[in-house]
């Protein structure tokens, strides 16, 4: 035990952080040893990000003590934390889109002499860092806003490495990464820990934790409920700790199919957009869930948005119940009964200043008004009913939507399309950033919708999710459909091979 | 105002006659003209009069009129442009006399005679001739007229209001000073004072507030007949009739009202934009190296101050020709 204690790098005890009206952290303990990957688990809103922001000097704790290498530390600003040796990759991408890769990596500790920047040196070192991350091809002078999400995540990582930190915090680094990038990241993490650097790792994907984690700390409602668990603690135990209830498995079981193959609801023919995807054909029946698998950047979101009219198709048609849909016209799609739960909940779906009810009725304002005047009573009544149906908590439709957890916000987006009476629902990464408990509820909801005869198209980067929920799966690679098969004929390994290599092994 | 009888004069604007030998065409003269932005009727009339006068002499006068900016730095550039174009004579009504002094002087240094119109330069070295009104006397005459009228009515402690023009212009300060001096001499003083900005809207707004501050007035002087339309609108909205009002500058609109004599306005003190007609006429003579017929001097004088006559119902007809469209 003494040997281990001597290798303790960071000890946070009794950390309390209150935001007006919210006690985000109510006494959290965290002990990290040098050279370990310490995983932080917890439901949405459990306080993980808040804790690491305290550690990064971005938030000041109200109470509690931070001991760094045996000495009490005060982290009054991000600079203090960086100086001490804590580098952080934040959950929300923390890059400046208009600045170059190199500028982003060294922001705040620029290569400079007398205030004048030395760009050549910066570019050289940036390339070295990116190389270490397995991506020497990313040009250091390129604007970060022009990189893919995965590329941006790499820059974020390079930035953390650039600080020569003793502790690197990674807050959901894999949320936007494809499988091969995840492998790459894990290799880097392994290198780091081999050098004695500690990593605090946050993810909602338990299998990742199992793969690289050494120890696990579980947060629930702003409190540590378990710390220093071994990484191979059984899933059901971890979930029980996080959610306070038993959830048997994370991913859904296959269920009895509800496909009504006599009713072809959505038909996509030779759909294409320049530089994005081409020649996409499929049909979806009432009660059917069509899954689309593929790597990040394969063009899945673009296909959904094109069907929905948010992007204009360059080629091909979309038919709803046999009737052709006008291209590039969201309103026409909505009127035809299509709904889209987009990939970026916050920026593409939610009106954060509005109430839940106002968010729910946004697409159906005509139905909730007479002569242009809103019928607020009906609006409240119907949304309350729908929220109760979906088991959305809290079910008070007058609350601000910003007060809901991620999973419940996602349900509100689904509710928007249900009150509109949509028959086709396009779901783009519906569980991204949603914790395990809420996920299970969303899976149940998706199944119920199918049972009610809704046709669903599901895009997800999590293979087991697609395979577990969908009736049929399209495999997409570089904008083209390379395989289509009933879900129960596919295994995760097959699909991974196809998306990465172009064909099943 | 213009929309009443737009075809009254062709081209619009009043012109000086040009007498005797001076009427005959002489050597070609190019006159450069620069004035501030015509953001109210008076300045608009200045530009229009200049053009009308040049038109009258079109046989021997070319007018290059750059018009209108309230940014002294830009007006300097405009005058420089005229100098670069090698005009023979310059007529400048500066946005701010002090700020355009240097460019006036540099024109003079280059041998281009400058006629300084209205707002005076900081030094006489910067102009060959200054022609303008007498702002101080304008205030004095307004004050004297009001004092006399009130004495006639035997009012001992009158409340006398003042609606000034743009307060940051020296000419406004001169006018107010003259007004105050005249009233003090008569044993009176200036009561509530507001400053408008030569526009009808500000005239109305400021007067509406002034009338509230002074529930009873005996007289009111308004510096500028352009803003006067707004001043009168505020008075009629407040339904106030207990006082006499005197205007400033002498717009057609006000002179008509004075003549009709069914409103509070009883007089206006002239500050006529006809001075720009005179400026052009004199610029031509300067360019042709001629003198003024009636003077014994061979040369055009160095300064001419127009008189700020008091126009009342009695003499209104006499001044119809110099009245301007507000």
């Amino acid at each position, binding site marked *: 035990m003494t040997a281990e204690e001597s290798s303790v790098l960071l000890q946070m005890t009794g950390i309390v952080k209150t935001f007006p009206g919210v006690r985000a952290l109510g006494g959290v303990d965290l002990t990290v040893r040098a050279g370990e990957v310490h995983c932080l688990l917890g439901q949405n809103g459990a306080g993980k990000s808040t804790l690491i922001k305290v550690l990064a000097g971005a938030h000041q704790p109200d109470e509690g003590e931070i001991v760094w290498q045996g000495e009490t530390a005060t982290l009054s600003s991000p600079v203090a934390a960086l100086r001490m040796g804590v580098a952080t990759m934040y959950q929300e991408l923390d890059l400046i889109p208009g600045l170059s890769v190199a500028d982003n990596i060294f922001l705040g500790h620029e290569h400079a002499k007398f205030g004048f920047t030395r760009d050549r040196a910066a570019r050289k070192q940036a390339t070295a860092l990116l190389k270490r991350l397995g991506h020497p091809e990313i040009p250091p002078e390129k604007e970060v806003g022009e990189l893919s999400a995965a590329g941006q995540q790499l820059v974020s990582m390079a930035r953390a490495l650039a600080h020569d930190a003793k502790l690197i915090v990674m807050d959901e680094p894999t949320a936007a990464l494809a499988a091969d990038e995840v492998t790459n990241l894990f290799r880097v993490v392994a290198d780091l820990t081999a050098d004695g650097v500690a990593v605090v790792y946050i993810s909602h994907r338990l299998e990742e934790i199992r793969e690289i984690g050494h120890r696990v700390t579980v947060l629930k409602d702003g409190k540590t409920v378990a710390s220093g668990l071994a990484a191979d603690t059984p899933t059901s135990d971890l979930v029980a700790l996080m959610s306070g209830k038993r959830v048997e498995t994370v991913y859904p079981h296959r269920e009895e199919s509800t496909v009504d193959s006599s009713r072809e609801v959505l038909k996509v023919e030779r759909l294409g957009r320049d530089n994005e995807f081409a020649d996409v054909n499929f049909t979806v029946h009432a009660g059917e869930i069509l899954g689309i698998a593929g790597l990040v950047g394969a063009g899945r979101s673009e296909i959904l948005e094109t069907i929905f009219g948010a992007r204009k198709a360059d080629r091909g048609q979309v038919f709803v119940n046999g009737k052709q849909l006008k291209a590039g016209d969201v309103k026409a799609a909505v009127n035809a009964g299509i709904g889209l739960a987009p990939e970026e909940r916050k920026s593409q779906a939610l009106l954060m200043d509005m109430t839940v009810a106002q968010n729910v009725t946004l697409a159906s304002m005509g139905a909730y008004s007479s002569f242009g005047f809103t019928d607020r009573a009906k609006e409240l009544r119907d949304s309350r009913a729908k929220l109760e149906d979906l088991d959305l908590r809290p079910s008070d439709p007058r609350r601000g939507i910003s007060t809901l957890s991620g999973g419940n916000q996602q349900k509100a987006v689904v509710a928007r399309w249900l009150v509109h009476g949509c028959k086709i629902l396009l779901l783009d990464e519906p569980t991204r950033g949603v914790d395990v408990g809420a996920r299970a509820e969303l899976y149940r909801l998706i199944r119920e919708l199918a049972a009610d005869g809704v046709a669903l198209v599901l895009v997800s980067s999590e293979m087991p999710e697609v395979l577990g929920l969908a009736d049929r799966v399209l495999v997409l690679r570089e904008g083209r459909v390379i395989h289509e098969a009933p879900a129960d004929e596919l295994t995760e390994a097959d699909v991974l091979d196809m998306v990465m290599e172009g064909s099943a092994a | *105002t213009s929309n009443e009888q737009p075809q009254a004069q062709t081209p619009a604007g009043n012109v000086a006659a040009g007498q005797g030998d001076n009427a005959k065409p002489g050597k070609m003269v190019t006159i450069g003209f620069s004035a501030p932005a015509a953001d109210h009727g008076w300045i608009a009339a200045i530009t229009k009069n200049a053009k009308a006068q040049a038109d009258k002499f079109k046989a021997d006068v070319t007018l290059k009129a750059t018009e209108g900016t309230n940014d002294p730095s830009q007006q300097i550039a405009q005058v420089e442009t005229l100098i670069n174009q090698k005009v023979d004579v310059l007529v400048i009504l500066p946005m701010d006399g002090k700020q355009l002094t240097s460019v006036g002087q540099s024109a003079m240094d280059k041998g281009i005679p400058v006629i300084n119109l209205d707002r005076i330069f900081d030094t006489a070295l910067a102009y060959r001739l200054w022609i303008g009104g007498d702002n101080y006397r304008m205030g004095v005459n307004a004050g004297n007229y009001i004092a006399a009228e009130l004495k006639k009515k035997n009012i001992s402690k009158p409340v006398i209001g003042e609606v000034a023009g743009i307060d940051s212009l020296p000419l406004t300060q001169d006018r107010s000073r003259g007004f105050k001096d005249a009233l003090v001499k008569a044993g009176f003083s200036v009561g509530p004072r507001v400053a408008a900005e030569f526009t009808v809207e500000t005239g109305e707004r400021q007067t509406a507030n002034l009338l509230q501050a002074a529930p009873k007035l005996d007289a009111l002087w308004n510096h500028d007949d352009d803003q006067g339309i707004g001043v009168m609108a505020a008075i009629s909205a407040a339904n106030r009739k207990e006082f006499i009002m005197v205007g400033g500058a002498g717009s057609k609109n006000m002179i008509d009202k004075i003549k009709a004599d069914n409103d509070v306005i009883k007089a206006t003190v002239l500050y006529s934009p006809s001075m720009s007609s005179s400026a052009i006429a004199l610029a031509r003579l300067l360019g042709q190296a001629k003198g003024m017929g009636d003077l014994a001097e061979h040369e055009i004088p160095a300064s001419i101050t127009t008189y700020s006559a008091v126009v009342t119902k009695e003499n209104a007809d006499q001044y119809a020709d110099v009245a301007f469209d507000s």
Partner: protein
Amino acid sequence: MTQLEPAENTAERDTEPPGTPASRDKRGFPVDLRLASLFGVLVLMIIIGWVTSPDNFLTGSNFDTILRLAAPSGVVAVGMTFVIISGGIDLSVGSVVGLASVWMTTLATQSYGPWVMVICGLLVGLAAGLVNGVLIAYGRMVPFIATLAMYISARGLAEYLSNKQTQVVRDQDFLTFFRGSFLGIPTLIWILAVVVVVGWVVLNRTTFGRRTFAVGGNPEATRLAGINVKRHIALVYGVAGALAGITAIMLAARTTAGSSTNGLFYELDAIAAVVIGGTVLTGGRGTMVGTLIGVMIFTLITNIFAQNNLPTEVQNIAKGVIIVIAVLLQFRTNRARSTT
């Protein structure tokens, strides 16, 4: 503008926890501490006015004057409230007032009588507003720049049309009606009241208003909910323009003249009033009542200074300071509210 103020952002987040019940209905009603503090400023100003000129301030006719002066700026500010809530800004309203006031009072227009004058004022305003809206929504110009261009051009066009002269309104029916009063209250004040009430109802009780909040709050999400965002934005600027047209009519009545200088600086006053009233420049939030209070505060400043015979320069210094205080005060109240 958009200074996505870092400090501010985090501060907002720090201080405004999602879900304090008080913050629930941010838009709707005056039952809000932020508005209450603003109302406090208004009351304070009335007290100052009363104390400094006890005889003349609290009189019926002075209130008449104040309200009549507030009326045109108030109408412009109502339009600005819509524009700002929709996430935009309109720098051109003042110039559009000038243009509409000139156009409706040309000899030609006046010759067709009062109805045509009124309709002309309205249409010119509406048209200018729609040009703004189309440039912004369909031409994808930044609102600041599109309306700045209109600001410059409309004033130029007004000068061109009027030949820079003040055009006196001769039409007696027009003057009698708009300078008159109804039930003892001047027509201009009625117009202000109607515009504010209708503005409130449209903003808070109609789908148009709801969409305005939505477009300002998150345009992309609004578009993906099947709402025609471009058309809505164009319409919002059209509304602001039409209200500028109404203002032109009111000014033509008040000053008995049309002039290209009418409406000068109205845009700045309107924006200041709207923002002081608690509407945020980034869009998505705002209140009509706050705007009205903001307008009243500014009108009162001028009135109190005139009542006390104080010079304009001091008034301007004070005006700037009052803006700062009012905004900082609201921020504090807000903070205080959310920590309780």
